[in-house]
């Protein structure tokens, strides 16, 4: 059995080595694929904070992913059409600057997570799963019916947004940006898990009554974790939109929420690097099986069934020989 720390560093190294190799081998597509892995991993790291540490099975995280995406889409759209965003009282100029977009994306997703969390956390268990799913779907239909930003067709952004001092049009530089964002999120997740907040959150997941008796409010703890979780997934959404230079209601779809959970399950629930290895395997499967057959979802479904029924703790659980926390 291998120690989890060793596996974690190996995964991270692999994730950097692959695109660096691709630069020398001139395999641009591999860099794009790895960037996709990094962004999906970032979204799943966000979800993992709610699901893995907080025990909140959110089936609506696509809402935050989509909000992040649309924050980018709308700001960049107004910048490329030179029309200010009109809020009636104030007018706001669009922008092509990534740091500003990221700030807006995380703030809006955090706000949405706070609202959704406030309502959904009144319930637990199956209710929570269904309600988060329903709220995700609400955003989906809203995006479809809101014609001003493309409705069902989505929005295309012609040029990737800029970051001061970098040329984001060069794939490896954009990859670097996303990778740094992922590392920051991973460090945050790691620090969070060891902090007193993380420990009480963990306790609130296992026995909320005990947390309450020592004078803490489990609802508030969970809500804060849900907000952090939503904000990170929202940031990933903004990056994803920039990778594709396109946003559409599909970013809000419930399949995407499901896929984010799948990433975590494949990697291992509540593990630091679970979302990352999960995203690597998922994108590899999508690329490899998708190349073999149009019906690759059948095989994905079969693999997923196998993992759920017969293996506990995902890939990292398998490699370390230890089961993960139960959710």
């Amino acid at each position, binding site marked *: 059995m291998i120690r989890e720390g060793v596996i974690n560093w190996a995964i991270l190294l692999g994730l950097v080595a692959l695109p660096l190799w691709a630069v020398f081998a001139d395999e641009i597509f591999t860099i794009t694929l790895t960037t996709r892995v990094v962004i999906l991993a970032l979204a799943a790291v966000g979800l993992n904070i709610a*699901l893995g540490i907080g025990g909140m*099975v959110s*089936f609506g995280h696509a809402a935050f992913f989509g909000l992040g995406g649309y924050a980018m889409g709308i700001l960049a759209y107004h910048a490329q059409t030179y029309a200010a965003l009109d809020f009636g009282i104030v007018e706001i100029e669009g922008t092509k600057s990534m740091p500003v977009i990221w700030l807006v994306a995380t703030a809006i997703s955090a706000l949405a997570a706070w609202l959704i969390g406030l*309502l959904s956390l*009144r*319930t*637990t*268990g*199956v*209710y929570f*799963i*269904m*309600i988060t*799913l*329903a*709220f995700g*779907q*609400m955003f989906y*239909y*809203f995006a*479809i*019916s*809101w*014609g*001003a930003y493309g409705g069902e067709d989505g929005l295309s952004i012609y040029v990737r947004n800029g970051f001061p001092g970098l040329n984001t049009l060069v794939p490896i530089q954009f990859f670097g940006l996303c990778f740094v964002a992922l590392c920051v999120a991973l460090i945050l997740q790691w620090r969070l898990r060891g902090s007193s907040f993380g420990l009480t959150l963990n306790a609130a997941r296992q026995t909320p009554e005990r947390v309450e008796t020592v004078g803490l409010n489990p609802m508030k703890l969970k809500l804060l974790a849900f907000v952090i979780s939503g904000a990170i997934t929202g940031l990933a959404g903004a990056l994803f939109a920039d990778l594709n230079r396109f946003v559409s209601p599909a970013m809000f779809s*419930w399949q995407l929420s*499901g896929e984010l*959970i*799948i990433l975590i*399950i494949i990697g291992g*629930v509540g593990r630091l690097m679970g979302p990352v290895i999960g995203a690597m395997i998922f994108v590899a499967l999508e690329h490899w099986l998708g190349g073999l057959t149009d*019906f*690759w*979802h*059948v095989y*994905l*479904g*079969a693999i*997923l*069934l196998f*993992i*759920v*029924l017969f293996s506990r703790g995902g890939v990292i659980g398998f490699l370390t020989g230890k089961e993960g926390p*139960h*959710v």
Partner: protein
Amino acid sequence: MLTLLIIEQVLNGLQFGVMLFLMAAGLTLIFGVMGLINLAHGSLYMVGAFAAAWVAGATGSFLLALIAALAAAAAAGALVEVLVIRRLYKAAHLDQVLATFALILIFSEGTRWIFGSFPLFLDVPSYLSGPITLPGGIAYPLYRLVLIGIGIAVALGLWWLTARTRLGIQIRAGENDREMIAALGVDISRLYTLVFALGAALAGLAGALVGAIQSVQVGMGEPVLILAFVVIVIGGIGSIRGAFVGAMLVGLTDTLGGVFLPELFKLFMESGAATQTGSSLASMSVYILMSIVLIWRPSGLFGVRA
């Protein structure tokens, strides 16, 4: 004129509501008895619709098509229960969600593999098509009225089944204490398969009936499934009565909101913006309804506890 429009839209809402009820009844029954959250319920809806479209295409009989839908969905349900679902009753909700999500992927892509990506069409039979004149002079499609009738009949049938038959007693006992009824000599795993197949058959019936007014295609079940979730969250999970009330509320809110909200906004906004705001708000109306119910009663209208 306005009253006619309102009556017509209320009927549309009821029709949508009873179809949602067919879906939600199975979901809530399965959750109530087995404690299982089944995402693949929408796939059984799709199986019913495809079976009906295929049989109707081959034989030309709508009645045979409905029977085929019931049989195919019940068989698919029973098969899935025995092969997969049975292993999930004691598992965490997260595992149930994932395994049934995996089943959706398999069902959807499997159906695409067999029938292709193009939608199939199922026609309303001639003896049920065309409008009928209601008292008061309203012309309304006969088929939609028949759907409302079937929905209400199924609701009454389910009430009779759970309240008045031996199977119903076993189902209710299973909800309360599964060890006890197993100890009393009821074959619990057979009961579970039966309940699952019953829920699946209802979903299949809904799929076939709705398939005749919409197109039959892969992925048709999921939007309905998610609305059915909203229904049982509103009604209270495990309660069939709650599912009925919830389904009517959701059906009416969705239909009436879609028609009247844009009109309402036109009273004080300019036309284009009103249509935009109204239809966007209408698309969210069901979820807003759900939020209000949740704030008021976190475990639903008829739910015992969360």
